[in-house]
C-alpha cells in the first residue's frame, strides 16, 4: 500500500511537477535603466524591477520612462521568469518624402506634426497620414528612432517631375498663382499644363511647363542676369524712359533681366534713349549730340523774331535760338516784308536774313499838263 501510494505519488509528481514548477514560479521584470513605470491596461502597477506571480496565461505590460521609447511587453506564465529589458533612448524619427513639403498629420487627433522633411522625437509609434496637393494620401506608422523615405504617388492627371537647376536653390513657383512651391532640387507634382518659374537672385528667371511627355527629371540651367554699364559724357544723367524718374549719373550699372529703355540727358545736348537687353554688351557708351544754337541775324538789324503767328516774341535780331527741333519763326520789321523761315538742327550756325523793304506802288507822272488856254 505504501508502495502503491509511493508509486502514485511519484507518478502524479511526475505528472504535476512541471505544473507545480511552472505555475508557481515568480517572475521578475527588470529594465535598464531601472525605475521604468509599468502599466497594465492603462493602469500603473509599479516600477521596475518588478516581481510578480503568474501561474497561467499572459500579461501585457507597457514600460514607460521619460526619455526612452515606450516598450510593450507580453509575459507568458510559461515564458522566462526573468526579463531584463533594455529601454531604447528616444532619438529622432526622420521622415523624408519625395516631393518635400508634405503635411504629416497624426490620425488619432488630426494634429499636423509638420511638413517634410521632418524630424520628430517619438517615444512611441504614431500613425500618420502624409498629404500633399496633387498626390495621393499616404498612411504610415512612424516608429520611434526610424528614418523613412516615402515617394508620394501623384494623383491621376498630375505629373511628378524632379526639378534640378544649376545652381540649385532656385525658388519654384507656379506662374499663374505666384506662390513659391519649393526650392530646387525638388520633386514637384502638378497638373499637366502648369508652368513653373525658377527664380534665383542674380539669375534670369526660367520657365518650364509640365506636360504628358515631361521627363521625370528636368534640368534647368539658370542664366546669370547680365550687368550692363551705361556710360556717356561727364555729367550726363540716366532717367527711366518715357519720362521716368532719375536713376543716377553715368556710369550707371544695372542688372538687366529684360529689355529696358533708358534716357540719357545732359544740358545742351539732345537727350538720347538707349534700349538694353540681356544680350546687350556689358559696357555701352552713349554718344550725345550737342543741341545747336542758331544765330539769327537780320539785315537790317532790329527785326522782331517770334514764333509763327507772333504769339510769342523770342526777341530782337540778332538773337541766339536753340534749334532743338524743326521750327518756324516769323521775322518782322516795320516797313519790311514779313519773313517766315524754318530752322532746325541742320541749319547753319548763323542764319542771315535779308529783309526786303515793303514796296509801294509808284505813280509815275509822265509830265504835268502844260495846257494851252486863256483865262475866261
Amino acid at each position, binding site marked *: 500500500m505504501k508502495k502503491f501510494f509511493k508509486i502514485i505519488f511519484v507518478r502524479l509528481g511526475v505528472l504535476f511537477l512541471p505544473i507545480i514548477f511552472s505555475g508557481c514560479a515568480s517572475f521578475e521584470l527588470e529594465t535598464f535603466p531601472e525605475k521604468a513605470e509599468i502599466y497594465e491596461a492603462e493602469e500603473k502597477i509599479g516600477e521596475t524591477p518588478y516581481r510578480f506571480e503568474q501561474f497561467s496565461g499572459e500579461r501585457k505590460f507597457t514600460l514607460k520612462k521619460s526619455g526612452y521609447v515606450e516598450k510593450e511587453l507580453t509575459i507568458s506564465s510559461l515564458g522566462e521568469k526573468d526579463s531584463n529589458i533594455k529601454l531604447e533612448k528616444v532619438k529622432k524619427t526622420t521622415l523624408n518624402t519625395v516631393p518635400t513639403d508634405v503635411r504629416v498629420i497624426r490620425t488619432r487627433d488630426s494634429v499636423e506634426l509638420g511638413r517634410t522633411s521632418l524630424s520628430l522625437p517619438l517615444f512611441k509609434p504614431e500613425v500618420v497620414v502624409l498629404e500633399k496637393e496633387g498626390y495621393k494620401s499616404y498612411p504610415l506608422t512612424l516608429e520611434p528612432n526610424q528614418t523613412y523615405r516615402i515617394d508620394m504617388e501623384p494623383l491621376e492627371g498630375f505629373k511628378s517631375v524632379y526639378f534640378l537647376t544649376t545652381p540649385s536653390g532656385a525658388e519654384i513657383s507656379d506662374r499663374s498663382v505666384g506662390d513659391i512651391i519649393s526650392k530646387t532640387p525638388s520633386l514637384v507634382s502638378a497638373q499637366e499644363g502648369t508652368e513653373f518659374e525658377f527664380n534665383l537672385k542674380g539669375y534670369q528667371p526660367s520657365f518650364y511647363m509640365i506636360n504628358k511627355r515631361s521627363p521625370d527629371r528636368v534640368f534647368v540651367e539658370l542664366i546669370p542676369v547680365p550687368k550692363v554699364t551705361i556710360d556717356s559724357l561727364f555729367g550726363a544723367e540716366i532717367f527711366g524712359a518715357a519720362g521716368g524718374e532719375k536713376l543716377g549719373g553715368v556710369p550707371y550699372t544695372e542688372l538687366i533681366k529684360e529689355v529696358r529703355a533708358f534716357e540719357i540727358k545732359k544740358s545742351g545736348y539732345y537727350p538720347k534713349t538707349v534700349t538694353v537687353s540681356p544680350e546687350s554688351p556689358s559696357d555701352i557708351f552713349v554718344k550725345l549730340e550737342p543741341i545747336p544754337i542758331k544765330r539769327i541775324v537780320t539785315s537790317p538789324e532790329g527785326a522782331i523774331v517770334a514764333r509763327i503767328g507772333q504769339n510769342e516774341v523770342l526777341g530782337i535780331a540778332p538773337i541766339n535760338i536753340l534749334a532743338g527741333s524743326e521750327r518756324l519763326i516769323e521775322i518782322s520789321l516795320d516797313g519790311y516784308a514779313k519773313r517766315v523761315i524754318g530752322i532746325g538742327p541742320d541749319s547753319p550756325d548763323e542764319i542771315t536774313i535779308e529783309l526786303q523793304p*515793303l514796296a509801294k*506802288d509808284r505813280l*509815275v*507822272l509822265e509830265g504835268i*499838263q502844260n495846257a494851252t*488856254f486863256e483865262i475866261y
Partner: protein
Amino acid sequence: MIDKFIPSRDEQGIFETFSDLALCTLAITLVMLSLLATNIGQRINIQISENQFNMDSAPLRSYFCISETLRDNSALVHFLDADVVDKLTAYKDTLTQSRIVTLPAGRTMTLGNFLLLAPAIVPGIDQNGLSTLSPLTDLWKADVISPQNEKFKINLSASQSAIKDLFPIRHLDESLKRSRIYIESLVKEYAGKEKYYVVIGHAAYPLPEAIEDGSLEWLRSFESGTADIYYLGDLTNYKNDYVNKRHQFFIEQGYIECAMSYKDFKDQENLKSKINNINNIFINDSFFPLIKHSDAWNNYINEQLIADPDPPTWFYKEFLVPLGFDRMVMDIPEVK
C-alpha cells in the same frame, strides 16, 4: 300771209343784238389801234438833243487825287483810271516789288488849273451807282514820281474834301445820273482871221492847238457813254459894256457881286501865275468867281440850257470829232 315775211319779234331781237355786238367790237378795235399808233409815234419821235454829245464807250470811272510837294505845298491833281487802281488794290499779298502806274501828262494838272475847269464839271454815277469821279482811298498807297524828281505825296484827305466841296455844286437835282461837262464856244478875230475856242469853266482852249498839244487830254477821264458834253452856247457876241457874255448875264440877272468878282478876277495881272500857285480850294472864299458864286453860275447854266443853242459847225469838226464826242445824245427824259 304777210306775217310769214315779217320776222317775228324774237328773231328781230337776235339780229339787233348781233349787230350791236359787231359795232361795239369794231369801235374798241379802232380805239386800241389809234392808241397803239399814237404810242409808236411817240416812241419814234424821240428827240435827239443837238447840243448834248457823248461817245460810244463803256462807262468809265476815274479816281481823283491831289498830291502835294513837301517843298512848297504846291498841289497837283491827277485823274486815275479806276479800273487800273481797283485791280492793284485787289492784290492782298505783301508787296515786295513796286508796281508802276504811268500817268500821261494830260491827266495831271495843277490844282489851280483844275479849279478853272471844276465849275463846268458835274460828276455823275456809273451803272453800279458809284461816282464817276471818286476821291482816291487809302487802299492804294503810291509814291508819286514827278518828271523833275520832285517829291510829291498824295494827300488823301485833300482829295476827299475837294470832291466833297466842289461837286455838291450840282445845279440839277440829285437824280442826275450822267456826268456833265458844260462847254461854250468862242470866236475871236486875230488879224482878220477867226480863231475858235472852247470855253470850259474859266479856261478857253484855242483850237486846234489845245487838241494837238493835249491840253484837253483830261477830258479822256470822262470818256464814257454816260458822260455828256453839254453845249451852253456861244460867248462871242455880247454888249460892249460888259467884260464878256457871262458878265453881261450876271449884271442883267442881278448877280452884281458875282459880276464884280468876275470882272476883278479877269482884270488881275499875272493871273495864270497866280492860278498856278493856288494850293487850296476854299469854296466860300474861292479865287474863282464861278466857284465862289455857284448860284449865279448855276443859274447861268440853266438859262443857257433852256435856250437850247445849236453848236456852230466848226464846233463839231474842230472839237467834238477829234476828241471822240461825236454822238448826239437821245433826249430820253427818264435817262437824264
